């Protein structure tokens, strides 16, 4: 009998109810407790409601918005608040919030929002700090290198693995011997799967067309508008390359991207502070592991 009682979730629910009620008795204010069917709409309640809705915790802003509302807008706000409050209380009365994972998640999110809101208001944007942040996170702003080149492609011959290499070597001599220009490349070689000319393309883009091996070989070349280089091997065959331009990868000057860095710094600072706030909450608890 006792055992079945202990296993009965209803009993747990009732016990929990007693606990909650007890807590409520201690913390609930006198007048609110008098009539649980009364919803008090006051300025504080509306301001809180507005801030949760906007997911922004800034009392001053909310206050201003409330004051600038037209009569209709304010009525609508009150209507929404009352509706939500009434439904919430009813749901609570029905015990719907207990053991509900969604509510658990939402409650956690709510605290995270609050922590975030607090963090947002305490961010400082000192100029030297922003620049320090930039220097610490330079890699976030790195802009990739780019190449401009044209190529003459010699398809792999499935029956003869050396044939393409031999053709490429002969063609290389011809191209350089005749001083064939960049724009005349189309007259030579086979049709390649992708482009003939690549203008201001990054190593990743090039690798997505030619494969990694080609990219690596290209990175060894020196730009020369009058010289055919190679052959370079890709998965598809041999390539004779005229590399006309190479722009090394670089991190832009801080002054050129200041506004972007400032925003990143703001977000980074908020995250740090929010994490700190959450950490402080977690530290209030003693964790026992029974694994």
């Amino acid at each position: 009998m006792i055992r079945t009682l202990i296993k009965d979730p209803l009993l747990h629910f009732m016990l929990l109810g007693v606990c909650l009620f007890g807590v409520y008795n201690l913390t609930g204010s006198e007048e609110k407790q008098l009539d649980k069917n009364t919803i008090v709409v006051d300025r504080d309640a509306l301001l809180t409601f507005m801030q949760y809705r906007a997911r922004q915790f800034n009392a001053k802003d909310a206050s201003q918005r409330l004051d600038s509302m037209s009569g209709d807008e304010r009525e609508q706000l009150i209507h929404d608040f009352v509706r939500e409050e009434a439904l919430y209380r009813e749901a609570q009365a029905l015990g719907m919030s207990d053991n509900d994972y969604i509510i658990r998640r939402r409650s956690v999110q709510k605290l995270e929002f609050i922590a975030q809101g607090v963090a947002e208001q305490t961010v400082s944007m000192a100029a030297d700090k922003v620049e320090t942040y930039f220097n610490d996170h330079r890699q976030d702003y790195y802009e990739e290198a780019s190449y401009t080149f044209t190529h003459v492609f010699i398809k792999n011959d499935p029956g003869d693995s050396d044939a393409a290499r031999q053709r490429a070597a002969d063609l290389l001599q011809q191209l350089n011997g005749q001083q064939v220009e960049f724009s005349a490349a189309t007259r030579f070689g086979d049709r390649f799967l992708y482009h003939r000319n690549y203008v201001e393309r990054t190593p990743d883009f090039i690798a997505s067309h030619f494969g990694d091996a080609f990219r690596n070989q290209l990175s060894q070349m020196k730009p020369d508008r009058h010289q055919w280089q190679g052959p370079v091997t890709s998965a598809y065959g041999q390539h004779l390359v005229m590399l006309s331009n190479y722009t090394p990868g670089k991190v832009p000057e801080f002054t050129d991207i200041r506004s972007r860095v400032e925003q990143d710094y703001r977000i980074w600072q908020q995250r740090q502070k929010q994490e700190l706030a959450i950490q402080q909450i977690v530290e209030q608890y003693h964790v026992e592991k029974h694994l």
Partner: protein
Amino acid sequence: MIKKTLISIAVASMAVPYTYAAPTQLYWGDTHLHSSYSGDAFAMGNETLDPDTAYRFAKGQPVIHPFNRVRVQLNRPLDFLVVADHAEYMGLMQLVRDKSSVLENSENGKRLLEMWDTKGSKSVYYDAAGSIVKGQPYDDLLTQAIRQPVWDKIIAAAETNNEPGTFTTFIGWEWSSMPGGANLHRIVFTDKNGDTAKQFLPYSSTDSNRPEDFWNWLDKTSGETGADFVAIPHNSNISNGLMFNDVDSNGHPISASYARTRMRWEPVAEVTQIKGDSETRSSLSPNDSFAEFETFDHVMTFGAKEQAEEADQASNYARSALKRGLEIDAKTGANPFKFGMIGSTDSHTGLSTASEPNFWGKFGLDSIPENKDKETTPHADGWSMSAAGMVAVWAEQNTRESLFAAFKRKEVYATTGPRMQVRLFGGFDFNATDASDNDLAGVGYGKGVAMGGDLSHAPEGKTPSFLIQAVKDPDDANLDRVQMVKGWLDADGNSHEKVFNVALSDGREDLGADTLPVGNTVNLETGHYRNSIGDEELVTVWQDPEFDASQRAFYYLRVLQIPTPRHTMLDAVALGKPRDDVNHPATIQERAYSSPIWYTP
């Protein structure tokens, strides 16, 4: 001079043997088709036409229309198709309808199951869609347990219907990002097969609304699974000034790395479809008498009034984006808008029908003339849309590998429905006799680059010339003209545009904007037209008369048909209505847009 349609068909079919020798063949398809697995499609009259049926219809097999129950079949099947359903709650409506047990572990699932019985399917759709519009998606309906089986079915439909050499399917979906109603949607498809596609679930706007996050996901997923992707932005016309603007999602000026990431994943843009054309507007191109084609600017603001404030139109249209791309390129060293152009339907019936006389609706609901006045998307009805959007691909063969490579190199082009054949090659050595060469493509590839390509380093004293061929759709109307649209950047960093008539039908003289119009043979009482005007084929070599080797530039073709009846007119005839009641143009001048060729000094 009267030309008979029969003759033109004969000419077109005789042309076929020549193209056999060509290095690339022309393949026709649609990369943007919704089936009943898209929630809005389901809610608007397509509850039955699933991905498998959509593929079968595209292959030429007869199917039953999901709304009006007519047996429909394509005269001319497609060569390839991407069924691209909305990733957001993909297939959820079916699960609710079928009372699927996977929903029973979810609060919202249980709620929707009940709602279906008490309030009906539409309420379920609006409830689910509303949660996304509000930015509060139901997490408990986005679990792998719910999504995986739906995704598996989409994969299976693509895998079963893929027939290399005959008909190609790609596994894909739509990322339907819509911040504040602004359309930032992208179609995504992969080159890989089902085994690879099963390693991920479609990235959805419930994961993130920001294109930057979406590209990061593509990058990461590509690294993990080996899948490559093509992502295709569309309906920039209703993006509320966001699709091609000059700042990123944080409001910062576009950087070189933004531009390069975007171009790694988005080689082409869909510039024409049922919900309007996105090439250009009169306000952006005041000297272009053919601008303002099939304008559709009903931004999809759900439950709110249509945005009154004027969006930045230059950010909504492809031509102005191509120009802006040159400006940003000069400033940052990378062009974020170096895209090719395609069309597709965005039909939600599961039926890819882009032709005016054979239009089976944007949705199921508006597939019959009587329902064309029903609002199917916010603020818009069937009359305001047109049958549109095909993508043409020049590729070696009809396989996933070959077609995918063509998308990546942008050797693709857009038409508003008809299948006109368009070749474009750019180089420095084309001369007038090349236009009459039997092996036109061979000459084109031999002396230049194809559409989508780059030219650079003009030899001293030389000017780019272009080898151009446009052939009419054998089953459709003659051609009015071929135009070259050029955009360039001056020394001060400002971009400009100009439209050149490069080939005119019926022997007309080019007088720029004063060129005689081709005429109009459409009979407004019967809806018939005759191919007694226009030409079957226009071929030419054109040299840029204003070339400056120090200026960045792009060149793309616009090919115009002679006027033909719009579906609205045919439906007005069918309904016995006066045309004025329909309040939309009776005729339409269908067109093709090639992908551009860029010149960089």
